[in-house]
């Protein structure tokens, strides 16, 4: 699961919470700050990332992943933004979301082979394994939620599914453990182990030899949380509450990367097909996004737009350097 390239997956259980929008602007921000970034649309079957970038009729799409004739470089589409390339998932043929594990692994191999500083994956909604597997290959996980309770619930389910999938893949050879962590087959699933604590109790009782590995998996799982469409301080608290839930039931150390306030500017940018970080880098949502990028990259970024040109001020956090 290790890769030379830094992979950031942006996921969340619920659809329509702004995953694509945030992912796109994160990629743009990182690209503007000097990183070589590849943005990839992995929402197969319902891709729309190219629309957010204003790219109509992309030259390549989802089907090209499995075309033997296409090479890696031909899939990368120029976005018009320096340092930013784009891999489109367009080509939404009916049923194309239901690709098998082999194809998923091929795409994952493709992602890991990309030559870039950062690859950003825009995931689809839901908690099916196609989505979760993309999430779990990332070196930095970003889960997105909105303040609504339904969104918080689904995000928690998404994080739990991701953690349990990691455990499941780590202990693929042990069917008894699979029963506890893979509930895809309800007839053989042990639904009594629905939290990390309960799972650990079972590991202590039945699989003490695997307990250390189990603990390491849980320890390494550190998703970062972003709350989108924040309107009040109460909305910010929902992020804290989600972190508490994750800590309490999954015992995972998740981090609060930041939040993005709700703004009509963001919505307008979608209609205009101009990412809001480029359209108005000094707006509040853009500032929020810069803080999130800073949390992900250990830098302090500041974007200023003057005479139609965007100037970037970048300061590396020294403390992070010492830690490294």
């Amino acid at each position, binding site marked *: 699961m290790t890769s030379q390239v830094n992979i950031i997956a942006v996921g969340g259980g619920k659809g329509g919470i702004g995953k694509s929008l945030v992912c796109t602007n994160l990629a743009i921000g990182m690209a503007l700050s000097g990183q070589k970034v590849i943005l990839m649309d992995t929402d197969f079957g319902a891709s729309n990332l190219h629309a957010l970038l204003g790219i109509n009729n992309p030259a390549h799409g989802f089907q090209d992943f499995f075309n033997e004739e296409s090479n890696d470089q031909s899939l990368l589409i120029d976005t018009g933004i320096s340092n930013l390339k784009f891999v489109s998932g367009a080509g939404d043929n009916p049923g194309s979301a239901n690709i098998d594990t082999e194809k998923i692994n091929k795409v994952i191999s493709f992602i890991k082979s990309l030559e870039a500083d950062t690859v950003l994956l825009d995931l689809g909604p839901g908690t099916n394994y196609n989505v979760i597997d993309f999430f779990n290959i990332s070196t930095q996980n970003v889960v997105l939620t909105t303040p609504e*309770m339904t969104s*918080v*619930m689904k995000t*928690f*389910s998404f994080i739990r599914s991701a953690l349990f999938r990691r455990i499941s893949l780590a202990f693929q050879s042990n069917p008894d453990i699979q029963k506890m962590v893979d509930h895809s087959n309800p007839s053989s699933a042990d*639904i*009594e182990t*629905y*939290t990390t*604590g*309960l799972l650990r109790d079972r590991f202590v009782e039945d699989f003490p030899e695997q307990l250390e590995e189990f603990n390491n998996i849980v320890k390494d799982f550190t998703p970062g949380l972003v709350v989108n469409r924040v*309107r*009040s*301080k*109460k909305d910010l*608290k929902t992020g*804290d*509450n989600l972190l*508490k*839930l994750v800590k309490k*039931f999954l015992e995972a150390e998740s981090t609060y990367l930041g939040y993005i306030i709700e703004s*009509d*500017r963001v919505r307008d940018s979608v209609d205009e097909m101009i990412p809001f970080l480029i359209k108005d880098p000094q707006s509040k949502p853009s500032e929020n996004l810069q803080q999130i990028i800073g949390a992900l990259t250990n830098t302090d970024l500041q974007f200023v737009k003057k005479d139609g040109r965007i100037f970037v001020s970048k300061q590396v956090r020294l403390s992070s350097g010492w830690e490294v």
Partner: protein
Amino acid sequence: MIEQYLQVALEFVKEIWFQLDSQFGLEETEAFKFIHPYLLQLQDNPMYMGGAFIALFLVPFGLYKVRSISRERERKLDELMEEMEEEEEEYEEDDPRRLRRPESAVETTSDKTADDDEDEEEGDKPLFEKQDDAPPPYMEILEKLDAEESDDELHVDTQKVMGTKNELEPVSSELAEPVINKDLSEFEDFEFDSDEKNDPSHDMAMQELQDQGELTEFENNTLSSDDPFANYSELDDEEQDRAIQELQDEMESTINKLTEQLESGPEEIPSAIKNLGDIRIGDDTTIDDEFTLDEEFTLDEDITLEKPKTEPIPEPQPLESIDLTDAVEPVIEAIEPVADVSPPLQPVPERDYTIDDKPGGGQVDSLINRLKYFQENLDTRFHHSEKRERVSPPAAATNDFVDEHRYIEQRSFATKSIPVDNKKYMEVLESFIFLKDQNKHK
């Protein structure tokens, strides 16, 4: 630099808003939802934003300015009045240069403060009055009317109501209290001042009613010397209560007498219609003297609802054996005479219901009217606030409705909001995430 200041200011404003919102939940209010789109417009358009800020400062400043100007003018007016008073004091009583105003008005003007608007208005009044010693012509008429009606306790002192009388003497010590005086003055205003005395349509209606004999003219009834209400306004509270008690006793005795009369002679109904034959219902037609209402409308005394006759059900007979015509014809014959007697519809003759024609009716009604008036007066005086609370029909109606419909299942359709308390929020969240059986984690 300016951007940094703006940033700090925005952060500060945002923090204030977050605090207010978290404390009071402002964003959930209907008012905020209403103005939210406008606020977004303000945020997007610098022109609107500038206009809003300008309005935000200009409107309160304008209000303050208007207020301060008016206060300044009032202050100048006060100074002017004081100067005039000082000048007047220098002149002699008969000096024509002395400004002729009522003393009370001068006192009121000198005592008023700048903050007391009502007093200021009262103090301003004398400036616009005619500065003439002779009273205005309408005052003479009012005085004349007062003099004519002074011995009637229903009379209201018009000078008192209009505030032109110099000295207002309270009828009792309790009435002298300012709050009660206010209540009484309200009472007087509502009951007599504008509605009855000054309304020409009301006067016309009164005149018509008097012409028709529907209304007794109380004004012409001079009260006897032994009447307990002859000098009602001069009595103190105990005497007033005693007078009311006497009046009630008198009324009860009168009612008892009337009841006895009615019980002793039930056949003689006190009415102006003495003889049915006297009533003319057409040009040449008169009601038959032998016709009695009993024949027409009274039921057979043998028929009682309490004890219905339980006759045995006759055995069914074949239809051929029943003579239907025999059963129907007698009924038709019985109805025919009634049809002959019934007169054609004619206009109802005018009936005289003058109170004087009823034995003791006029006296009783006048006593009842007076009693009602005094009781209402006393209620207004002593239980003004209680009366207002009692007269709250919507609440009573709601309670009645609830009582009547308490058998209806009580269901609340109020919006269930997410609990603000974090602990409760987490509990709710957990309840939605986990199944009912998944309770091992607790």
